[in-house]
């Protein structure tokens, strides 16, 4: 039976794929050019599943894939029981509170009805609790930067890598509330019940993908 590794599409994948090239876990180039989402690797019996970040934890937690690479922002937003074996430090970002230029945290605190738009509801809620702040959370899935400009929210909580998108929308990062990066995760059952099968593969992924 093949071992399946769940790999993310998108931002983390852009950094990760070149690192896998030429290693025993390099993905089959021909399959990558096709539309299949189950890709053979250079190691027989090890295949990669290409998944959207939000779906990936469930594939691993349910044991369909024994290992996976996923952003900590995604992990922190979902409640699944899996092992988080390493911080690969890929795709590192800040999770930040951002507001229109000229607005700071003190000003936001004074708003009688503070509205914050975000895709990261759980992490934002935890930060608000720690800050003893009350706010209405406006859950959005994309283009969060538009919310303060168009009056949907007073501020946003979003991932910031270079700050380019914020600048383009005249927003300013006013508080870093967390840091995120790609993590190597494992299915609890597979890792603990078949250590001889899964642990060497986990070690290989860590040595290949870790960005110190």
């Amino acid at each position, binding site marked *: 039976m093949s071992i399946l590794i769940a790999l993310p599409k998108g931002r983390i994948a852009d950094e990760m794929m070149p690192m896998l090239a030429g290693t025993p876990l390099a993905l089959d180039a021909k399959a990558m050019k096709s539309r299949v989402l189950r890709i053979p690797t250079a190691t027989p019996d090890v295949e990669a599943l290409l998944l959207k970040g939000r779906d990936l*934890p469930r594939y691993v937690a349910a044991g369909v894939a024994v290992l996976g690479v996923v952003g900590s922002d995604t992990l922190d937003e979902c409640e699944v029981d899996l092992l988080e*074996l390493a911080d690969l430090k890929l795709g590192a970002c800040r999770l930040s509170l951002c507001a229109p230029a000229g607005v700071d945290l003190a000003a936001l605190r004074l708003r009688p009805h503070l509205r914050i738009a975000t895709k990261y509801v759980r992490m934002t809620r935890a930060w608000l609790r720690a800050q003893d702040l009350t706010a209405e959370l406006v859950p959005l899935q994309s283009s969060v930067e538009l919310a303060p400009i168009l009056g949907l929210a007073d501020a946003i909580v979003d991932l910031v890598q270079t700050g380019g998108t914020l600048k383009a929308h005249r927003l300013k990062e006013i508080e870093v509330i967390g840091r995120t990066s790609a993590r190597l995760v494992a299915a609890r059952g*597979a890792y603990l019940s078949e250590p001889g099968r899964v642990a060497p593969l986990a070690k290989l992924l860590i040595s290949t993908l870790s960005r110190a």
Partner: protein
Amino acid sequence: MPTHTPHYPDLLFPATRRLRRWEGVLMEKLEGHGYQELRPSLVLREPVEERSICFFDGDHLVALRWDFTVALARMLVRRFPEPPRRISYAGDVFRRTAQPWEPVEHFEVGCEHIHLDPAERREVDLELAKLIMSLPAVLGFKGGILALGHAALLRRPMEAESLPRALASRLVWALDRRSLHRAAEALEGHPAAPRLLAHAETLLAEPDGEASLAALGQSPYAALLEEERAHLQRVLVNLTPLLPEHLTLRLDLADVKGMDYYTGPTLRLWAPGAQHELAAGGRYDGLFPELGRPWYAAGFCVRLTRLLDLAETRPELFETL
């Protein structure tokens, strides 16, 4: 991970037959070792646990039985001035699990050994370990891994460092995820962080028997944990020659699951490739003192729901079904 309805499974003919058969052979095995069955009510009136399924019975908030050990402990304290030494149980409990897609109803068979003299602990733990080791043969699966842990390996260092409750919970959560970087995040800025992280690294190192115990001897808390290390060493020496064929004994020093409950050695039985442990148990000497009785206790529970799942999804793991 949103789920809109809890998962209440129905059992069809083959699963029902297996459940009946496994319950029967396990209870027979336990009875053969002197365990007598008790059955606490399915509806509990005690303060309701967070993961339980609760509802109003008239004006009273009640809960479906969510854990046999807790329900039995309350029953024993209410009804028995001296504890019956060996008790067994079989039936279902209802609780929400960490994975939202898992069933809420769980079928279990288990046993508990309750005693008054702490000097009996070693003998009792060995008796229970032997019983767990016999489970693969009793249930007809081909092999497995028995993981041996000890709840005090993390608890005592955290107590020694007077870690606040919330921080201790975060550290336990991080270790349960086998995540050293999350432990480092949790401990950031705490004066004991370097010591606790060095210890966490020792616990998280890959389990490999004697070498793990030797590494534990180099932990910053080695002196504090000398008794626990000696205990694990003794258990390894005692159990290894008794291991049935196809069962592997493995040390898992980072096993912190249930640490708010377990106080001593823990055992978990895994089938290769299974997503969940099939049986789990250990020593929980804090339970009865909390209820006002100076009794010591250890026990284990066989998770029949998980065996039923495994029988459906991985029949090749069983000799017979």
